[in-house]
C-alpha cells in the first residue's frame, strides 16, 4: 500500500484529479458532480482558528449557565437555562428527547470545540500522533450532530410563541447562543482534511 502524492479524489463521485494549487479563499469543485474538492487556506486564517475556538469554549460556558429567556405571567416569573429545560423534559419521562437535545446542543458542541482545540494546539500531531488521529476522527463523527444554529432558531420560535400569552425578556443565554453560532460557523469552515495537510508521516 503506497501513498500517492499530488492527487485528489472527489468524496462524492470517486473522480481522480491532479491536486489544484489554490490561493487563499479559492475553492475547487468537482466538474463531474459539483461537490467541493478542496479550498485554499492562508496561514493567517489557520492562526485565527485557535483563538476563535478558545472564544467558542468561553461563550459555550456562558450560554449554558445563563438563563435564555425569562417569562412573566400575572406576576409569576420563570427563567430557564438549556440544562433546566433538558432536565424538566427528562422528569416528564421523555428520556430519548432530552438525551437528543442534550447531545446535539450541549455534549457534541463541547466535544467538537474541545477536540478542535487539541488538534490546533501547536505541535500536537508530532507529540501524540495516535491521540491526534483518534481525536480527529471523533471530531468528524460528532460534527453532523452539532445543531447549535437550529437551537438558536428554536429559541426565537419559542419566544414568539410565548409572547402572545406572557411578558418575555431575552436573557444573556440568548445572545451567547447567537455568538456561539457565529463562532462555530467560523471554526467549522474547514474540513477534517485541513488538519492533515502538514507533516505527512506515511
Amino acid at each position: 500500500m503506497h501513498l500517492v502524492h499530488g492527487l485528489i479524489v472527489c468524496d462524492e463521485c470517486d473522480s481522480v484529479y491532479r491536486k489544484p494549487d489554490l490561493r487563499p479563499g479559492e475553492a475547487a469543485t468537482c466538474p463531474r458532480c459539483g461537490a467541493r474538492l478542496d479550498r485554499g487556506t492562508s496561514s493567517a486564517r489557520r492562526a485565527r482558528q485557535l483563538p476563535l475556538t478558545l472564544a467558542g469554549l468561553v461563550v459555550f460556558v456562558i450560554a449554558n449557565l445563563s438563563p435564555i429567556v425569562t417569562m412573566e405571567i400575572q406576576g409569576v416569573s420563570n427563567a430557564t437555562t438549556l440544562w433546566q429545560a433538558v432536565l424538566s423534559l427528562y422528569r416528564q419521562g421523555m428520556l430519548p428527547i432530552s438525551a437528543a437535545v442534550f447531545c446535539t446542543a450541549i455534549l457534541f458542541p463541547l466535544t467538537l470545540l474541545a477536540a478542535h482545540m487539541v488538534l490546533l494546539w501547536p505541535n500536537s500531531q508530532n507529540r501524540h500522533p495516535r491521540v491526534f488521529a483518534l481525536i480527529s476522527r471523533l471530531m468528524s463523527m460528532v460534527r453532523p450532530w452539532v445543531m447549535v444554529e437550529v437551537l438558536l432558531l428554536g429559541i426565537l420560535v419559542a419566544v414568539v410563541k410565548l409572547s402572545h400569552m406572557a411578558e418575555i425578556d431575552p436573557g444573556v443565554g440568548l445572545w451567547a447562543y447567537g455568538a456561539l453560532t457565529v463562532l462555530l460557523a467560523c471554526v467549522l469552515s474547514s474540513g477534517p482534511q485541513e488538519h492533515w495537510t502538514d507533516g505527512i508521516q506515511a
Partner: protein
Amino acid sequence: MSTTERPPRARDIGLVHCHHCGAVWSAAPPHARCSRCGCKLHARKPDSIARTWAYLLAACILYIPANLLPVMVTRGLLGEQSDTIMSGIVYFWVTGSWSLAAIVFIASFLVPLLKLVALLLLLVCAQFKTRWRRRQRACLYRLVEAVGRWSMLDIFVVTLLAGLVQLQSLATITAGPGALSFGAVVVLTMLAAQSFDPRLIWDTGDPTPP
C-alpha cells in the same frame, strides 16, 4: 467531447482514498486502514443500499405517528390542549406570525417529507443503476445532507417551552408522544443520508461517466 478528457474514477484505476483525511492510496488490500489517520478504507460504503433502506423504512413508518400524535400538551386554567406539528403551524398562521408559520412549515413539515421522497428516489435510482439526471441527483443528495438537521427545530421548541412554562397553577407544557416519533424520524433520516454512498449515483456501468 472525447472520452479521454473525462477524469478517471479511483476504483477503476486501483486507487482508494481516505474519506477522513483525504490521503490517496494505491494497491490497498481489502479491509485496510489508512496508515495516516487510521480510518477504515473502502471503495464504497459497505452495504450502503441495504442500510439506507432499513433507516428509510423505519423513518417512513414513524412519520405517521409523528404527524398524528400531539407533540406538545398545554395544561392551563382553561383546560388541556394538545398540539400536533400541523396545529402548531396553524396557530402561528392565525395569530398573524406568517413568517414564523412559514419557517416552521418548511422545517417541520416540508423538509422531512421531501427528505423521505428524495432518499427514496436516490435509492431506487442507485439500485437500478440508471443514468437518468446523475448530476441533478448528486445535487439532490447534497441538499438532503445540508437541510436535514433543520427539522430538529420543533424538538428544540418543545424542550424550551417545557422548561419555561412550569407555572404550577397557571399553565404547564409537557412534550407529547408525537415528539418522540418526530425526533426519531429526524435522526433516522439523517442516518439514512449518512449511510447512502453518493458514489453509487455514478456507478452505472459506463467506464467514464460524463
